């Protein structure tokens, strides 16, 4: 494959957005978890919930901060590398991104301040309300991003005027089955990420024999939430598959490794797609009508194969084929772990089952891998289109961008991101390792606009320099 500015731009976008999604998917789930903890703390009055809350608030701060920092870049990258797309789709994608910035920023910034400063200054119900508003802010942010991306997957509600996508029905753009299956799918994925990170932390503490009370709550709640959410997530995953089958047959055929039209369809469980010869090697296949049943909820439906789609409209088949299976595999592992763990926890035997505790501890990468591979399936599967069926990725790029410029930018992006990622994850690791040991002190220097300052793990003993009303 030739190294072109197009390829480099795609790699750059993929790299920066993959880096970015790690942090929001973690912090959206954590924000919701903090709300649950605060509600429990209010309802039961048990101090242990409060301790766990303060502990996870610090980790939330770091993840949130890294998400913000890496998100700023995204607001610019459409224009730098994809000027044709941003010219054409600006009237639709621009407003959607603006809603995200304006709405989410307002909520998060305002109420995050209360979370840090307000404990002693506001009534308990208002503190809980603020926590919920921060969680709502992160979810609203996710919502507008999903509307934005869903429009690129299946463009609704526009007319083409002078080569520009002009919106003519915002309700269609926002309220359609694609958005409302994909947004819950992403939101649940974020909640599951939070749940597994919490459970893994609990398992680690149990194995290390520290923070007994906190660890058991983290384990039980993390796994319990996952046990409830996983089946719902599978359902929404199935609904997302439904939209793909309806609107993006090329993506569906690649995911399924289906070469020929079939009626009813069979289901390839595993194979090695041989694109050159248009066949699957080493295929393990369920006979018809399993393919139709899974893709179309029908015993008899016809399923489209890649051979009836012009090859210039194929995505790179192997990537969606494998990333989809990795995502589903992670999901199955998480389901098994969540159910088994919750069952043992219910029987009060989980704390003694060291193998399962170790498995739970090592499960924390699973939701991240599932989210990233799921996004790869969606985005690579959409190729060769940037706006599906209307605008090709190759035609969307900045026409005068050179390979040299794209190389330079990609290299420096990688260097700087690797640098801050290493430090950021190291601080999260250190916070989790230390655990909820210390009684939480108000971090004098943490302010709404500086969430990462929560990571100062040693209490600051100096007096606060910025006294309000001084």
């Amino acid at each position, binding site marked *: 494959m030739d190294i072109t500015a197009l390829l480099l731009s795609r790699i750059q976008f993929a790299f920066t957005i993959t880096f970015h999604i790690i942090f929001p998917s973690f912090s959206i789930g954590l924000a919701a978890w903090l709300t649950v903890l605060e509600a429990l703390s209010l309802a039961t009055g048990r101090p242990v919930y409060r301790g766990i809350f303060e502990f996870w608030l610090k980790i939330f701060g770091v993840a949130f901060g890294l998400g913000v*920092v890496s998100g700023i870049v995204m607001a610019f990258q459409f224009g730098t590398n994809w000027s044709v797309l941003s010219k054409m789709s600006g*009237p639709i994608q621009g407003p959607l991104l603006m809603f995200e910035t304006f709405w989410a920023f307002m909520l998060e910034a305002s109420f995050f301040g209360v979370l840090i400063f307000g404990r002693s200054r506001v009534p308990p119900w208002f503190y809980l309300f603020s926590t919920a508003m921060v969680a709502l802010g992160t979810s609203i942010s996710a919502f507008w991003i999903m509307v934005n991306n869903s429009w690129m997957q299946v463009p609704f509600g526009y007319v083409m005027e002078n080569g520009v996508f002009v919106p003519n029905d915002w309700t269609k753009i926002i309220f359609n089955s694609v958005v409302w299956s994909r947004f819950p799918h992403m939101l649940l994925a974020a909640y599951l990420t939070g749940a597994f990170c919490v459970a893994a932390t609990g398992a680690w503490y149990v194995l290390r024999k520290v923070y007994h009370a906190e660890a058991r709550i983290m384990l039980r709640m993390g796994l319990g939430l996952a046990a409830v959410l996983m089946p719902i997530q599978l359902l929404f995953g199935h609904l997302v598959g439904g939209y793909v089958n309806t609107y993006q047959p090329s993506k569906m055929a690649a995911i399924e490794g289906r070469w020929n039209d079939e009626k009813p369809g069979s289901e390839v469980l595993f194979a090695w797609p041989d694109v050159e010869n248009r066949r699957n090697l080493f295929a393990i296949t369920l006979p018809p009508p399993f393919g139709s049943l899974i893709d179309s909820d029908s015993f008899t439906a016809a399923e489209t194969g890649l051979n009836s789609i012009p090859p210039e409209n194929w995505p790179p088949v192997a990537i969606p084929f494998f990333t989809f299976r990795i995502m589903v595999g992670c999901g199955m592992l998480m389901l098994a772990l969540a159910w088994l763990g919750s069952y043992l926890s219910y029987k009060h035997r989980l704390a003694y089952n060291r193998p399962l505790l170790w498995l739970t501890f090592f499960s924390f990468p699973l939701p991240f891998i599932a989210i990233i591979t799921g996004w790869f399936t969606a985005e690579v599967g959409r190729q060769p289109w940037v706006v599906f069926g209307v605008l090709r990725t190759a035609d969307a790029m900045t026409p005068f961008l050179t390979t040299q410029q794209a190389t330079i930018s990609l290299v420096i992006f990688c260097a700087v991101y690797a640098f801050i990622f290493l430090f950021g994850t190291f601080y999260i690791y250190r916070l989790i390792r230390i655990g909820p040991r210390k009684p939480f002190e108000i971090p004098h220097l943490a302010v709404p*606009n500086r969430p990462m300052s929560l990571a100062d793990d040693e209490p*600051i003993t100096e007096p606060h320099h910025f006294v309000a009303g001084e």
Partner: protein
Amino acid sequence: MVMFWVSLLAISILLYVLLDGVDLGVGLLFGLASGEARRGTMLSAVAPIWDGNETWLVITAVILWGAFPLVYANLLSAFYLPLIVMLLGLILRGVAFEFRYKTQRLRWIWDLSFAGGSLIATFIQGMTVGALVEGLPFTNGEYSGGAVGWLTPFAVLCGIGLCLGYALLGACWLAKKCEAEVREVAHRQIPVLAVGVLAFLVLVFAYALAEHLPILHRWIDRPYLFVFPAIGAVAATVLALSILRHNDHWPFYMVALIFVSAFGTLALSFWPYMIPFVITIDEAASPHSSLAFMFWGCGVVVFPLMLIYTVISYSVFRGKVGATAGYGHH
């Protein structure tokens, strides 16, 4: 509707320049300061506000994309490398606020990334404005200048000029917010930087005369534009008086006023162009259905809320910061 979004864009850009100009300027002066006590104090004068300030850059970007996609697409792609380097500069200086207190031995790395990131970001912002004023090479409505079409002596001059300008803003902020040594050093820096900024403005004017830049003709065509330079001149006079009296607060407001007048001069002399003299506001504007959707959903309620929020967070952190030490000594 178009006018509404032009105004919001102008407010956002102006707020960004004034607010982030302060902490970028402090970043520049930070590079000149020695000693942990001074550096720590300087940081704590901007630590609570820098991230909120930077948000106005994102707001500017999304207003551009949503309301003026043609400008967003053309400018961002034309300034490809400088823009990406600027963003990474901003990231590096941003994380430095937190990371420098995690380490003693490697603190110099983060101090370097704070001062260096501030310098890079400021220089590129000034250079971008300079290149815009001078006029980017466009052919048939599309940028045609290649990878470094923006790199001209005038653009570099503007980059240096903005470094002086932001440093002046930063010094005035430090005089306003700090005590003891940092305040005294700032008071010594203000006149030097002020003279530098004025010299820069004279130089720009001379260059414009020499090169017959299109923008100069617009000033001559529209004499009423001289209201803005006049405001700037009055502000400069008050600034000089307040420097002589060692006032802590007036210099900041006067420098801010000079920035406002410079911004107004620039914006009105571009009018009605957004990319001078290639794309006008009306050509660049999104269709009405987009502008109206954003107006009701974002502009009319949420934007004022964001302004109120900014005012509140500044009033929470008003007053002088501690004089002797920085924050977070571990």
